[in-house]
């Protein structure tokens, strides 16, 4: 059965598309093209003189060891947040999927962190972990560990990883739970009769059947780490100490907004844009094929 509207001419469909196209053009294509254009320009410090420099901004960027360090930080950050939030969310979802008493309350509570804005989440966590005032930090320091995310880069990175993971778990949990609930009970029961232990059932039946969900979430989580953690980082560490928590998107903000180097900042956004386009392409290409069983 076809659910397709048939139009007489071409003008009405175009007219109907116009609002959407307008929104996309104004809010997506126009800024993107501006970024692309900016990335070819070089401005003096006062914004009085602008010259077209072709790929000079890119060249400079790729000759800067600081940029590679930021890339590495971002990669480490992404792997840790995605890895942690996915595995913890899966663990929680598997527990919630068991028909236990109060399951719905448990599920509802788990979803709450997702409703907290990134900046607020960052403030919450810094309150807890601020070395001299934070409740948790005092506990850690009392145990003899010199915890100081304001001075120690690794501590700072750990802290933003924890905060970002905490915020993302809810989202992953929701998808995992839906994925688990879509696995027919009978399949699990059949495996139980077939002599598979609970652990073996998880690895040989449940996990493969969840693979489309996992793949989708990996991509979404990477995009999350790339962009949405900005608020958390800005509220907690501002990329510091000494750039230990500076991610690609934070560097875009730092160099452009604070450093006033609009050309380099634009070039960085273009690179980020290309990365996300590539990720999305991979997702669209593979989600139907390799992963779908």
């Amino acid at each position, binding site marked *: 059965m076809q659910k397709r509207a048939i139009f007489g001419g071409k003008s009405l469909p175009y007219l109907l598309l116009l609002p959407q196209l307008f929104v996309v053009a104004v809010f997506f294509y126009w800024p993107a093209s501006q970024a692309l254009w900016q990335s070819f320009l070089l401005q003096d410090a006062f914004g009085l003189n602008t010259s077209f420099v072709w790929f000079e901004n890119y060249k400079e960027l790729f000759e800067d060891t600081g940029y590679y360090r930021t890339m590495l930080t971002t990669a480490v950050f992404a792997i840790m947040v995605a890895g942690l939030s996915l595995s913890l969310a899966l663990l929680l979802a598997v527990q919630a999927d068991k028909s236990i008493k109060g399951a719905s309350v448990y599920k509802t509570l788990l979803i709450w962190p997702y409703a907290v804005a990134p900046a607020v989440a960052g403030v919450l966590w810094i309150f807890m972990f601020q070395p001299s005032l934070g409740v948790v930090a005092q506990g850690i320091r009392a145990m003899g560990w010199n915890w100081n995310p304001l001075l120690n880069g690794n501590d700072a990175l750990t802290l933003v990883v924890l905060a970002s993971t905490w915020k993302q778990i809810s989202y992953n949990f929701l998808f995992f739970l839906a994925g688990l609930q879509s696995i027919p009970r009978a399949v699990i029961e*059949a*495996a*139980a*009769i077939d002599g*598979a232990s609970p652990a073996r059932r998880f690895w*040989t039946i449940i996990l493969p059947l969840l693979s489309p969900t996992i793949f989708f979430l990996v991509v979404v989580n990477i995009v999350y780490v790339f962009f949405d953690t900005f608020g958390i980082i800005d509220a907690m560490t501002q990329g510091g100490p000494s750039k230990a928590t500076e991610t690609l998107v934070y560097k875009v903000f730092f160099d452009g907004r604070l450093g006033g180097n609009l050309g380099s900042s634009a070039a960085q956004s273009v690179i980020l844009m290309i990365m996300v386009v590539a990720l999305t392409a991979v997702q669209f290409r593979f989600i139907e094929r390799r992963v779908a069983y």
Partner: protein
Amino acid sequence: MATVELTNIKKIYAGGVEAVRDVSLTVPNGSFTVLLGPSGCGKSTLLRMIAGLETITSGTCKIGERVVNEIEPADRDIAMVFQNYALYPHMSVYDNMAYGLRNRGMPKPEIDKRVREAAVLLAIEEYLTRKPRALSGGQRQRVAMGRAIVREPQVFLFDEPLSNLDAKLRVTMRLEIKRLHNRLNATSIFVTHDQVEAMTLADQVVVMNSGRIEQIGAPGEVYKHPASRFVASFIGSPAMNLMTGKIVEPGVVETPGGKLPFDAKRFSASGEVEVGIRPEDIHTASSGGTSFTPELVEELGATRLLHGNFGSTPIIVAIPASGTVHENKEMRLSIDAQAVQLFDKATGRSLAR
């Protein structure tokens, strides 16, 4: 192969719902036993308790010489075929069948041998490398049975395995299951709500209703001598005609359709009773007998169903489709005395001695 023995099995769910109430049943070694009943009668719950997928609230379940109440499904030496097949969607047909054997650490050559044998038996050799989604419903059903067969279990459990198939395929698969059972001779317990499946497959039919067993017997026995009004109305299509009656003298019961003879040697009855007559046990007569006016005639090809009333009780008569019958024209019917069933008005149990 083994005998399955259920003694005073009860299942009460956490919410207090009694799904199975005090069921005792013996499934002899090698028998094909069908649990038959309407949905919600507890037949699937009973099967799942035998499989170990539901806990048993009270009573004992024995498979062979072993009480299995506390034994994990994997260790009960049973195999189950599910209604929706429950194949592992990410595994090939081969892996689906081999999974249970691999889990038990069977050597590879032995697994291969068993899977291939089962595949030949079920005519699915050419699909071994396919994924379940690339198979038709009937093929999936075969794979599900293959998965059970390779295990060579003591008992086969079938949970409405045919109800997801279309009508034509259901008939074919029914025959194949029967053939397979004749060949393997394994103890089988089969759950269905379809009386035709039950009658054709079983050598022992267990009719269940609201968590209790109404009757256990061979298909013919259950059909000819229903132990209760429920069994009488559940088995047979169209359903048995039921009407009120009063014993007026030994061997004669007065019904809305007039005085009918019954087998006084078989039934001990007096006073008010419930009278049951199967539509196919009522015949047309040239004269005498009972007066009947068909209001509606249904042609079924080989037979013809006449709908009318005895007094105010609706009656269905099934007669061979020969000659002509006119709607709204009075005719005479004769009723076979041997076919008249009598039930207790209050309890619904058969009044047979």
